[in-house]
C-alpha cells in the first residue's frame, strides 16, 4: 500500500514536471529570473510612465483665461517655482525636518529594537511587539488629531500642568510640534527595519567581544553598530523619504504656517488649479529625494544593505 502511494507521488511529480516543460520550454529557462521579476518591473514601469506624464505636464504653463495648460513647451513653471523665496524656505524646512526626524527616530528606534531582540522575557517581547504594531491600526490623520487633543490649550497636557499649578503653554501649531508628530509616526517603521539587522547579529558575537576584554560600550561601538548598519541605513532612507513627502502632520499640527513641500504641491494642484506648477514642484521634490538617497547609497554602499556586488 505504501509502495503504491509512493508510486502515485512520483507519477504526480512527473506529470507536473511535464506540464512545466510544456508551459515553460527549455529555451525559455534562462528567462525564468525575468519572469519572476516581471510583476515588479510592470509596477515600476507604471511608476515611470506616471513620472514621465508628470514631467510632460510640468512643461506647460497655465492659461488664466481658460484655466487650461498651454500647448507650448516651456520651463516657466520651474522658473516660477525656483524664483519664489517661499519655495526655498519651505524646501529648507522640509529637508531640515526630514533630517532631524530621521536622526531622532533612529536614536529612539535603535534601543527599542535592541531590547525587543535581546530581551529574555517573553512577556516583555509581546508587550513591545503590541506597542509597535498598534499604531499601524491607527491612521496618520487620526494620530495627528489625537495630538491636537493631548497638546491643545485645553488638552490633557495643559490640564496636567494646571493641576500642578503651572501656567498653560501653547504646544500646538509650531515646528517642533510637527517634528514631534512625525517622529511618533515614523518610529514603528524604523524599529521594524532595524529588527532584522539586529536579529542577524548572534548574541554569541557580543559575548565573544566581551570575553576578549571589551566593555559593553566598546562592543556596542565596534561590533553591534557596524553589524547593524544595513538596518540603520535602510531605516534612515525610509524615514527620511517618508518625512520628506509627508503632508498630514505638517498640515494638521502646523496651524497652516509650517507647511512642508507636499503642501505646496497640494496647493498648486488643488487650491490654485495650476497642474503645471504642481507637477514642476513634484518633479523637483522627486529629484531632490532621489539625489539624497543615491548619495546615501554611494557613501554607505549598497553592500551594507546586503546586496551582492555593492561596496563593502
Amino acid at each position, binding site marked *: 500500500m505504501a509502495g503504491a502511494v509512493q508510486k502515485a507521488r512520483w507519477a504526480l511529480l512527473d506529470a507536473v514536471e511535464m506540464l512545466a516543460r510544456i508551459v515553460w520550454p527549455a529555451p525559455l529557462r534562462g528567462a525564468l529570473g525575468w519572469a519572476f521579476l516581471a510583476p515588479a518591473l510592470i509596477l515600476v514601469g507604471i511608476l515611470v510612465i506616471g513620472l514621465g506624464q508628470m514631467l510632460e505636464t510640468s512643461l506647460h504653463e497655465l492659461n488664466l483665461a481658460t484655466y487650461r495648460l498651454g500647448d507650448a513647451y516651456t520651463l516657466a513653471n520651474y522658473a516660477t517655482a525656483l524664483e519664489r523665496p517661499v519655495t526655498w524656505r519651505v524646501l529648507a524646512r522640509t529637508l531640515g525636518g526630514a533630517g532631524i526626524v530621521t536622526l531622532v527616530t533612529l536614536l529612539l528606534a535603535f534601543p527599542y529594537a535592541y531590547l525587543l531582540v535581546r530581551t529574555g522575557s517573553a512577556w516583555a517581547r509581546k508587550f513591545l511587539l503590541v506597542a509597535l504594531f498598534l499604531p499601524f491600526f491607527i491612521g496618520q490623520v487620526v494620530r495627528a488629531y489625537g495630538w491636537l487633543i493631548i497638546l491643545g490649550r485645553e*488638552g490633557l497636557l495643559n490640564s496636567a500642568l494646571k493641576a500642578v499649578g503651572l501656567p498653560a503653554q501653547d504646544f500646538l501649531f509650531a515646528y517642533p510640534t510637527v517634528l514631534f508628530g512625525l517622529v511618533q509616526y515614523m518610529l514603528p517603521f524604523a524599529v521594524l527595519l532595524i529588527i532584522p539587522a539586529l536579529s542577524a547579529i548572534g548574541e554569541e558575537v557580543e559575548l565573544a567581544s566581551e570575553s576578549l576584554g571589551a566593555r559593553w560600550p566598546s562592543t556596542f561601538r565596534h561590533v553591534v553598530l557596524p553589524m547593524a548598519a544595513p538596518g540603520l541605513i535602510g531605516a534612515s532612507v525610509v524615514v527620511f523619504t517618508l518625512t520628506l513627502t509627508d503632508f498630514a502632520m505638517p498640515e494638521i499640527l502646523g496651524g497652516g504656517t509650517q507647511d512642508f513641500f507636499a503642501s505646496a504641491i497640494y496647493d498648486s494642484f488643488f487650491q490654485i488649479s495650476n497642474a503645471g506648477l504642481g507637477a514642476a514642484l513634484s518633479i523637483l521634490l522627486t529629484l531632490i529625494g532621489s539625489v539624497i538617497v543615491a548619495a546615501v547609497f554611494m557613501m554607505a554602499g549598497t553592500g551594507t544593505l546586503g546586496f551582492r556586488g555593492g561596496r563593502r
Partner: protein
Amino acid sequence: MTFSRRTALKGGAALGATLAMPSILRAQDKPSELIVRAWGGAWGDALKSGVADPFTEKTGIPVRLDFTEDNEIKPKIWAAVDQGRVPPIHVNWDTTTNATISALRGVTVDLSDLPNLEGLLPSAKPVGLEGWPLVNTYAYVYVCAYRPEAFPDGAPESWTVMLDPKFKGRVALYDDGIGFNPIAVIAGGGTFEDIPDNMEPGYEFYRKLKANEPLLGEDPDFTSWFQNSEIDLACTISVNARAAKQSGIDVAWTVPKEGCKVDTDGLWVPKGLPANEEQAAKDFVNFALSEEAQKAWCGALGLPPVRPGIEPPADLVGDPSYPTRPEDFEKLVSVPSPVLVENQPIWFAKFNEIFQG
C-alpha cells in the same frame, strides 16, 4: 369574425399596458439618485433640510451629499469631462470664484432655461460670463468673529486689533487669505481703488500680522479653535460663527470699520452627464432657486438669498452680516469674480510667501 371573452380581456390588458407606458418610461428616466457636492457641518445640514429632502419628497429622486473638498472635486470633474467619462457628481455647490474657473474651462452646462431664474436679484447672475453657466444662490460675509470674554470693552472696531501683541498666536485667517485680501489692503492704509493693482498695503498688513503668529485654517478649524479657546479672533464666514454660537460656544461677530468682504456661492451642473441625469440635476438647481427652498436653505444658513422678499431669520434681523439695507452694503467690500479669478493665484502666492517665511 367573433370576439370571445378571452380575446376581449387580452385586448383590454394590452390597451391598459399601452396607456401606462409613458409613466413607466418616465419612471425609467428618473435617475436612481442625485449626487450633490456640499460642504459639511452646518452647511451640509442646511442643504439637506432646505433643498435636498424637499426635492426628494417632490420628485422621488434620492439626493446624496458628497462632502469631497470643493478644490479636490474640481480636477476630478475636469478630467472626467475632458476624457468623455461621466462626472462623479451631478450638481456642484461651489464658491463663485471656483465655479467661474470651471465655467472658463468650459465644463459647465448652461442653465439659461431654468424657469426659476426669473425674478432673482442681480447678484444671482455670474459676472463676465456668457449666459448662465452657474447661478449664484446667496451672499455671505467674512465677518470678524471673536470671543466676547477676550473683548470685555465690546466688539472690536477695527481689524487692526489683530496686530495687538495681546492676541499673539490667538488670531486666525483662512489659509489662502480668501475673504481677507481686500480687507487687508484697507486695514493696511490703502483703499478699495487700490485693488487689484496696488496690493502692497495689504501685504504690509500681512507682514505685521505675521509677527503676531496667526493660525491659518479652513471652516472646521475655526469652530474647533473657538471651541478649544485656541483663538480669540478670526476672519471667517458668518455661518461658521453662527453655527458655533448655536452649539453653545461663546462667539460673537461684527463688521469692523474697514468693512468685510462679501462673496457669493453658486450651483452648477457639469457637462457629460446622461440626458436624464442632467435634466434631474437642472431640476434640482431650479428647485434650489424656488422661494420655498431659498427660504429654508438660506434661513438655516443665516445668509441673504438671491430670491427677493424673504425675511431674515429672527436672530439676524439688523445684523450687519445679513445685509438688507443700503447702509449695510456700504460696509461690505465686493470684488468682482473676474478680478478674483485673475488675481487669486497671485494673491495666494504672496500670502504664502509672507506666512510661510
